[in-house]
């Protein structure tokens, strides 16, 4: 607590090496700079994805319109899905905040393999460029949906091969990050930083990294098979050659279900960091949260076929996977209850990060509860592949991971850039965002219950009213988004200088200057107690 900005070391934002400017950034091995590289490149792609989402909503504004063709619409939701999943939510929190804060939170100077870390970023960029290229080359943007279901993905004339290869490269980047984090957590914890003294963000990143290792290769090989199938016709997924489309679906979801936990676990980790800081008390049930992260990682790998209940799987499989799906919801429930209890008898300092944290809990609960509905067999049959699903996953991915990302950004912003944003402007952006969000995505869920299938270019008249509501919601949402990012952008350049510890946090990142110096710590700290130890601060 006492080692304040007296250091002679300059901030990591200042170039100290031989190279200057852009080159210094592109060749950096500093985990903090790599975190920012990810952030900037991701936001770029993210806005492309948001823009596409906006256009899709415009399409649904009329029952039939001539602005874009059906083929273009199919390409739009595919590209929207691919960008949002593979370029944004899957790598999102680990790559940005994991890179930036994992070493700091465990008291290390960097990750175990800094150069590999930079390589991961280059893989990410390469994958992203390939994904963009696939839009303009070959037969044009893929039109299969982000799930690339065979045999349609084998037959369509669009450039599925390149898009799928892009996803493969991105998967590689994700695995390398996972390897790095696991090794870092095993090897580089500061003296005294026992496993159960790690901040919960580290537990979340650790379990995420394990899913990345154990699930990503499956999708890698699946996508390789799709490419081989398209170029050489090896026939494993192609029913006309004896192959089986259901095998494709199994392999795809063996990865892609765990991937949704890759998205949410780090978000939950960030939430578990933020809550204690603003409640000024330790998190409720530290071990329960840590273990539930690990058990989500474990059980989450076993429920993939709940995406296939109507595919004609065996009845036994339907039963088994429905049962397992219910079980995987338990650890999430545990977390929610522990988070809420953390507010109990705290001394709550209401600040923007806390507002977004509570919003996260609310929206994630809706997303999670609708997930449970989908897991119930009799109901899934009705809502599978309708807008209900679209509503569900926007609630968990955007209301969950996205809101957590916002909260984390607000929480760590002063540390990362050493500047403070206007809190009023952030509060103001929250209202349109929250109202718009619920109009948009709750509207979608109602549509789904009414029987509106997803990936529909045109809709039947009975769905029109709700589609209009949803589209208007999307405008509000985007308004809020622009205000939000405008405020932060302004703060990066013109914001007031931030203190080293603006929120009164007690984890290690708040003991070093804002922004942190190159090697984080002047000397590696020795840890003597758990992560959320507020007594000491009160004593002062």
């Amino acid at each position, binding site marked *: 607590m006492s080692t304040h900005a007296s250091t002679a070391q300059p901030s990591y934002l200042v170039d100290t090496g031989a190279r200057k400017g852009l080159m210094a950034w592109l060749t950096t091995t500093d985990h903090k700079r790599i975190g920012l590289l990810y952030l900037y490149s991701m936001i770029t792609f993210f806005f492309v994805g948001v823009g596409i989402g906006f256009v899709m909503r415009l399409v649904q504004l009329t029952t039939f319109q001539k602005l874009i063709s059906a083929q273009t619409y199919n390409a739009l939701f595919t590209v929207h899905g691919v960008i949002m999943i593979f370029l944004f939510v899957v790598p999102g929190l680990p790559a940005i905040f994991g890179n930036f804060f994992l070493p700091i939170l465990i008291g290390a100077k960097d990750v*175990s393999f800094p150069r*590999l870390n930079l390589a991961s970023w280059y893989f990410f960029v390469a994958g992203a460029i390939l994904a963009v290229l696939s839009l303009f080359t070959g037969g044009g943007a893929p039109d299969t949906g982000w799930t690339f279901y065979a045999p349609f993905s084998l037959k369509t004339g669009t450039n599925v091969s390149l898009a799928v290869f892009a996803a493969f490269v991105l998967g590689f980047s994700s695995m390398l990050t996972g*390897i790095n984090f696991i090794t870092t957590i095993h*090897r580089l914890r500061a003296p005294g930083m026992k496993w159960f003294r790690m901040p919960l963000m580290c537990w979340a990143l650790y379990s995420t990294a394990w899913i990345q290792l154990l*699930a990503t*290769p499956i999708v890698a090989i699946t996508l390789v098979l799709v490419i081989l199938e398209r170029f050489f016709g090896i*026939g494993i997924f192609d029913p006309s050659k*004896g192959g089986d489309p259901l095998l494709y679906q199994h392999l795809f979801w063996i990865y892609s279900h765990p991937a949704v936990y890759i998205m949410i676990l780090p978000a939950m980790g960030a939430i578990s960091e933020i809550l204690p800081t603003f409640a000024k008390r330790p998190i409720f049930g530290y071990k329960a949260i840590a273990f539930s992260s690990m058990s989500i990682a474990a059980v989450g790998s076993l429920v993939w076929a709940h995406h296939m209940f109507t595919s004609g799987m065996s009845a036994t499989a339907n039963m088994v996977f429905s049962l397992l799906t219910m079980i995987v919801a338990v650890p999430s429930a545990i977390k929610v209850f522990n988070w809420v209890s953390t507010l109990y008898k705290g001394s709550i300092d209401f600040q923007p990060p806390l507002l977004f944290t509570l919003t996260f809990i609310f929206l994630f609960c809706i997303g999670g509860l609708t997930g449970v509905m989908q897991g119930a067999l009799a109901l899934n049959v009705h809502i599978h592949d309708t807008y209900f699903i679209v509503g569900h996953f926007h609630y968990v991915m955007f209301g969950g991971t996205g809101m957590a990302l916002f909260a984390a950004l607000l929480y760590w912003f002063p540390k990362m850039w050493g500047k403070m944003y206007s809190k009023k402007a952030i509060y103001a952006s929250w209202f349109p965002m929250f109202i718009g969000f619920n109009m948009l995505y709750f509207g979608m869920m109602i549509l789904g219950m009414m029987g509106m299938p997803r990936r529909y270019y045109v809709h039947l008249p009975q769905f029109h009213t709700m589609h209009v509501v949803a589209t208007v919601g999307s405008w509000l949402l985007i308004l809020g988004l622009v205000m939000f990012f405008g405020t932060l952008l302004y703060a990066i350049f013109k914001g007031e200088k931030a203190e080293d510890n603006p929120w009164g946090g007690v984890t290690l990142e708040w003991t070093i200057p804002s922004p942190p110096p190159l090697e984080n710590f002047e000397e590696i700290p020795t840890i003597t107690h758990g992560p959320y130890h507020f007594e000491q601060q009160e004593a002062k």
Partner: protein
Amino acid sequence: MTGHVHRDDFGSRLGMWLFLVTEMVLFGGLFIGYSYMRYRYPAEFHHGGGELNATLGIINTLVLLTSSLTVVLAIVAIQRAEKKRAMAFLGTTLALGLTFLVIKGFEWGAKFHHGIYPNSHHLATMPPGEQVFFGLYFTMTGLHGVHVIVGLGLLSVMLWWVATDRVRQDRYVHLENSGLYWHLVDVIWIFLLPLFYLAA
């Protein structure tokens, strides 16, 4: 690999093992596909296996097993600072690896010659299950072949590093890691042998 952190051989090996985990799962995915298909088409897989040249498969198994041995012996040699010997062992490994590829090439060549290759007319006349069998055969042995090539590349670098003393008695984790990779490639082949060549 570490810039400002002190050297951590254990960490490097851990990293390598974690990478191998991803490789195991990568091939695991294919093995899952294989068993799924074999369950669907037991007779066709049996028959397809009969058309492969088991002798070549067995020879290749012995070749790879031996090359695995020489890699591990090279590590022992390095630990004992026997540089020449280490280089000889590594050289043998490279030679055996190449032998493997050559034999593999002959085997594939023979299949191609008989009109059995993906998308061929001859294949299209076979029952669906056999088409799948050969699809898997070419994919899995092909992907394995790619790994052999990568492994050979790694080991060649190691040979060079041993020669230039970048790998030496007190600093050989890179050789260990390359060796781990090579062994994994061997293990995968150990599974491929019975699944394809001895399936009949």
